[in-house]
């Protein structure tokens, strides 16, 4: 698994993918958080990181599928899948290696935004006037959300040899998971089960974590979605044996 992880990560670095993803994410977030007046933290009057945590998921909806779309799709198209599957590796080695590599890349993109916290910390009036536990909770939520998106992306990439199809499917699924269930729950038709449906979506658990209260149920939700997505991927990968 570690070999796959390091190889995948090397491919990200050898190609432009890593630099473009990290660069675009940081420039975009920087502009939104500090420059554009509508969303700028400096103009908002509140010493919080709401901008980052509310916009980042939407950026991830497009960015994460872009990272993961090639993982299995390209492997299938170029035939390297055959090479990989005839090496002494279990399917889980391959899936987890690829999943962790893309997750690691997203983490690297997210890491520099910690600077935002320290900036706001020292800009606050009085200094240090920021909800630290809220920020920590939000970061955990955002990281788990990125992990779900990676798992969804890996799954979408395994269903097709076409990268564009993989990208579109992954972006759509991420969108459904992030806001789709929430919006569905608000339909009149579902009013009786609104809360139940809401709990299928990421937003419900993400918001709960961002309050700074790290509830094991929320964390469990994230982990189980990741597990289910990767298990389906394993099933698809194993279907060659049928």
């Amino acid at each position, binding site marked *: 698994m*570690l*070999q796959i992880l*390091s*190889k995948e990560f*090397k*491919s990200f670095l*050898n*190609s432009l993918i890593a630099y473009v993803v990290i660069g675009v994410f940081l420039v975009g977030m920087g502009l939104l958080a500090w420059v554009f007046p509508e969303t700028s933290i400096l103009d908002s009057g509140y010493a919080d990181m709401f901008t980052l945590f509310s916009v980042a998921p939407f950026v991830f909806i497009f960015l994460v599928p872009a990272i993961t779309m090639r993982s299995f799709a390209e492997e299938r198209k*170029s*035939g*390297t*899948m*055959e*090479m990989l*599957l*005839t*090496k*002494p*590796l*279990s399917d889980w080695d391959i899936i987890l290696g690829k999943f962790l590599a893309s997750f690691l890349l997203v983490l690297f993109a997210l890491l520099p935004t910690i600077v935002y916290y320290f900036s706001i910390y020292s800009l606050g009036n009085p200094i240090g006037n920021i909800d630290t536990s809220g920020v920590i909770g939000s970061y955990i939520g955002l990281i788990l959300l990125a992990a779900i998106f990676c798992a969804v992306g890996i799954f979408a990439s395994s269903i097709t040899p076409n990268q564009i199809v993989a990208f579109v499917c992954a972006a759509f699924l991420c969108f459904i998971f992030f806001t789709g269930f929430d919006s569905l729950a608000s339909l009149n038709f579902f009013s009786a089960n609104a809360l139940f449906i809401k709990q299928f979506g990421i937003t419900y658990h993400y918001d709960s974590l961002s309050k700074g209260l790290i509830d094991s149920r929320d964390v469990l939700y994230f982990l189980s979605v990741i597990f289910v997505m990767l298990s389906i991927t394993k099933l698809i990968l194993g279907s*060659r*044996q049928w």
Partner: protein
Amino acid sequence: MSLQIQHVTKQYDQQKAVDDISFNVQEGEIVGFLGPNGAGKSTTMKMATCFLPPTSGDVIVAGFNVMENPMEVKKVTGYLPEHNPLYLDLYVHEYLEFIGGLYGIGGKVLKSRVGEMIERCGLTREQNKKIESLSKGYRQRIGLAQALLHDPKVLILDEPTSGLDPNQLIEIRKLIKEVSKNKTVIFSTHIMQEVQAICDRVVVINKGKIVADDSLQNLLQRSDAGVSVMVEFEGNVEANELSVLKGVIRVQEVSKGKFSVVAASGVDIRPELFRFAADKNLSLVGLKQEEASLESIFRDLTIVSTSIENEL
């Protein structure tokens, strides 16, 4: 016994890609796996490398069944797939180190193995280039290097020499022959000279069935059953005019006025053909008895069995 294929069948929907084939390959043996396109060569190899499961039958590699012990099988086999898939965005040595890592080779051993393979496969000058910038011949060498990297007991090569220039061809053949001393090697090809150059034994497969499994010598002797003569006339000649000649078994029109005539063994039909031309007042512009080569055996084996099947 290192590679045993026992009554293996692979069915894709309606079509049987491989139909109840059995053969063995011993340690130290190089076996050429021949057959026309779509005969089932690659499918058989994919089953022997655990990429595809056989529909029925057993494939046993170095004592391990591919269905029961795939991990063990994968560890002892080196496999070069047909289209030689590579990660184009990696550097040559980086790619080989990655492959070595998959086999659990690490540290200094890995470095020295990779260095050795790079040298043996003639990649020294290319080792710091990205694979995408290399030509087909070099990529083929990388494919071979990755198959040999972990010193496998069983080597399965699917068309290892396709796309190579004549010089590279000879080098790669030499390399295969060199490394095969204490290994079990099976490789598929449709280049007959190659088989002649390196194989001990030939397995010919056609339409999913084995049509020949014998040593080269025996196959060459067997082909004496028929002698093929290439004859070319200037003027109009019909194939059936030739087929009534004495001793002729089969006539095939190659192009206009050019025929491949097969006669019973021991009969020289060249004088007969000459007299035929003289009688009809035709100019005989070509007359050549073909040496019984693997190529003609291959053609006989695969075309004959195809025509039988069509008649059924």
